[in-house]
């Protein structure tokens, strides 16, 4: 517990671009990204932003499509806040936080509730229209919590979906539409397909410190800036794909515009960094094989 004065001092530091760790207000801490960290998953990535550490694993399974969208696959999101990650993650609170972040991830990747796909081509996950499609499970796990968890999760999600390899399935023809389709698995990894993850946005979480927008708050800094949080999903071209204000503190329209401008500026940079890491690591793996 810090005192009111300490908190104010910290907030001013952020606003003035002179934070405890020496960063400016619109700087992220060093980003680390590692792909294919869970061998059992079809795609995975670990992302560290400073001391915050998250893991995202993607697994696919063959299942039936949703009734309203027979030609599309289904993507599920879940986030678990491990009690290892923080003394605060015990009991109910961690569950709510996880569900909240999963919802945010879902909206940023898939767009609105109409499930039209947003940044993913859900039609590419269709196997047999109306009967079989891929269900993609994106499971996030918070390993160490020190702020910017959603930002880290969104980065890891983008990386894990880039890493994702979907095995090829062949459908043996059946003359009778009533029949259960026979699905033959092609176990040649060479034939596995990847998903186009290039349009997936990253989430930039903005806070207001002394009226100025700031990003990537550490756990301590978060305690100093009690104001509203705005999660902005931004893709590689700087387009805003989603916007979500968290907390019930009021926000000025001008402040929001300022925040959006900053997000549009930072988003493509983060995407670029993620892309560079992914390309390097995937390329390295191919070379190794």
């Amino acid at each position, binding site marked *: 517990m810090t005192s009111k004065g300490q908190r104010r001092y910290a907030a001013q530091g952020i606003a003035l671009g002179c934070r405890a760790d020496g960063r400016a207000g619109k700087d992220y801490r060093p980003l680390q990204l590692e792909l294919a960290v869970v*061998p*059992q998953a079809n795609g995975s990535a670990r992302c560290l932003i400073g001391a915050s550490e998250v893991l995202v*694993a993607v697994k696919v399974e063959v299942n039936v499509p949703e009734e309203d969208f027979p030609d599309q696959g289904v993507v599920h999101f879940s986030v678990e806040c491990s009690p290892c990650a923080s*003394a605060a993650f015990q009991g109910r609170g961690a569950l709510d936080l996880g569900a909240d972040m999963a919802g945010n991830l879902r909206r940023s990747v898939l767009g609105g509730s109409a499930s039209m796909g947003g940044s993913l081509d859900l039609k590419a996950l269709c196997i047999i229209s109306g009967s079989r499609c891929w269900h993609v499970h994106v*499971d996030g796990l918070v390993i160490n919590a020190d702020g910017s968890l959603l930002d880290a999760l969104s980065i890891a999600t983008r990386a894990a979906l880039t890493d994702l390899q979907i095995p090829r399935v062949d459908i043996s023809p059946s003359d009778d539409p009533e029949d259960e389709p026979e699905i033959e698995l092609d176990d040649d990894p060479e034939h596995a397909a990847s998903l186009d993850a290039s349009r997936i946005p990253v989430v930039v979480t903005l806070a207001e410190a002394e009226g100025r927008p700031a990003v990537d708050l550490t756990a301590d800094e978060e305690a100093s800036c009690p104001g509203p949080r705005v999660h902005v999903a931004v893709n590689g071209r700087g387009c805003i794909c989603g916007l979500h204000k968290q907390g019930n503190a009021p926000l000025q329209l001008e402040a929001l515009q300022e925040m959006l401008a900053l997000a549009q500026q930072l988003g493509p940079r983060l995407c670029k960094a993620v892309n560079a890491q992914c390309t390097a690591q995937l390329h390295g793996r191919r070379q190794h094989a």
Partner: protein
Amino acid sequence: MELLSPEGLRQDGRRPRELRNLQSAVDTLGNADGSATFELGNTKVMAAVFGPRAAQGKSSGGRRDADIRCEFAIAAFSQSERKQLSKRDRRILEVRSMLKEALKANVLAELMPGTTIDVYVQVLAADGSIGAASLNAAFLAVADAGIPVKDLMAACVVGLVQDTPILDLNQMEEQMSRGPSLMMAMHVGLKKIVVFQADGRMPVEGVETLAELAEGGCQAVGKAMRSVLLDNTRKLALARGPVRL
């Protein structure tokens, strides 16, 4: 499925009395007071310890020793088939109570009256011998937190496949083996058995051979854990510089 070929090799190429590739590390998490990861082949577990900290609430207030609490979880993606196990799942509860009992038997709780020690264990990748790996991770985290213990504690799993005792079963061996299996944890210095959990029908004379192999396995695992802890201590000593009084 032929788990052990007549040539004496297991499916993954190990001989019966060989461990998988073992890796472990301590001080892996920023927020916890002690933390560790422990890997055996494709099994990977992380553990975090919070405490000892002053107990809250009435129930543990007047305790004359530390209250050790455990949580255990298996990530949904950790196995071949995605499976979200509830906290109340029998498999979760079994491991959790095993962890708690084993740690209680090792931690010198009476030195820390009125405190609480929270141990959280999370399986990230599952390929057999989960219980043993979890206990090893938990012990490393406890040691990393500087909590006083009786002795270095290490665990491993052994099983009987085609009448041959094998060490450190992976998931396929656990699933396909029709023979008995045994998870054992021991104080490697004191040579005392802490956990002894046998599954399946076991001939009396078989218990002894299995236990002997398990003891050897625990010693080998313990040796690796000791060197990780020593390395970490050395690193800390260097980082702190000379002791000033």
